[in-house]
């Protein structure tokens, strides 16, 4: 399985892959295509990726999550054309206790947003479209993908 997929994400399959009789909890996050963004009506969108790098970044952050917490992590991100309600990202984290499930799942979602080279083009009800720049949203945090990078 790859981390990026142009097919529908089957959340139940991700959950099944982290499930283990040794694990007492599973936290799952599913990101869906909303029908609005910053007050504008959205009709559909496209995710584009720097695929080779996105795959290696996803692999690295899953490995890091599993080193930080005693958890099993599965992650998929959809690319290509998505309709309203489609699953854009799914993260499933299984652990012994709810603490590490919640913390690990949240951390993976944040890391995907900050490290994985994926871009989103939104199409609006008025016929226009735009690449989304999260650093320009009111709620934006400055991404720091270099947190764990060695110097060149």
């Amino acid at each position, binding site marked *: 399985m790859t981390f990026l997929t142009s097919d529908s994400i089957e959340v139940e399959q991700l959950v099944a892959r982290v499930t283990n009789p040794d694990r007492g909890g599973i936290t799952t996050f599913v*990101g869906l295509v909303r029908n609005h963004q910053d007050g504008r009506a959205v009709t559909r969108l496209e*995710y*584009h*990726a*720097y695929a*080779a*790098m*996105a795959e*290696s970044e996803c692999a690295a952050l899953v490995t890091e999550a599993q080193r930080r917490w005693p958890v099993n992590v599965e992650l998929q*991100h959809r690319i290509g054309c998505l309709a309203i309600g489609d699953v*854009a*990202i799914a993260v499933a984290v299984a652990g012994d206790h709810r603490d590490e499930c919640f913390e690990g799942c949240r951390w993976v*979602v944040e890391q*995907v*947003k*900050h*490290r*994985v*080279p*994926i*871009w*989103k*083009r939104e199409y609006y009800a008025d016929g226009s479209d735009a*690449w*989304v*720049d*999260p*650093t*320009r949203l009111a709620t934006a945090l400055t*991404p720091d*993908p*270099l947190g764990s*990078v*060695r*110097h*060149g």
Partner: protein
Amino acid sequence: MLRHTSAMTAAAPATIAVRVILFASYADLAGTDEVTATLPGMARVTDLLDWARATLPGGARLPDRPLVAVNRTHVRLDTVLIDGDEVALLPPMAGG
């Protein structure tokens, strides 16, 4: 570290060629998603960005400190480039 050391101990070539790849809004601005840049030996990512600003259509609209990856890894802008590197200019990421 390896990249830097090898570049410094070998005789620096007079010029290097790097493959520059562009995504999303940057590709739209430049009207292309791939171009080759020829740069002086020991050029850094900052030098490549200067080249892109001067050379690529819409290059002047690159931010002061864009995100850059070399060979599929996020790097600092003072990273020294070597011949054959794949340098990706990354608009603000919007996954998740």
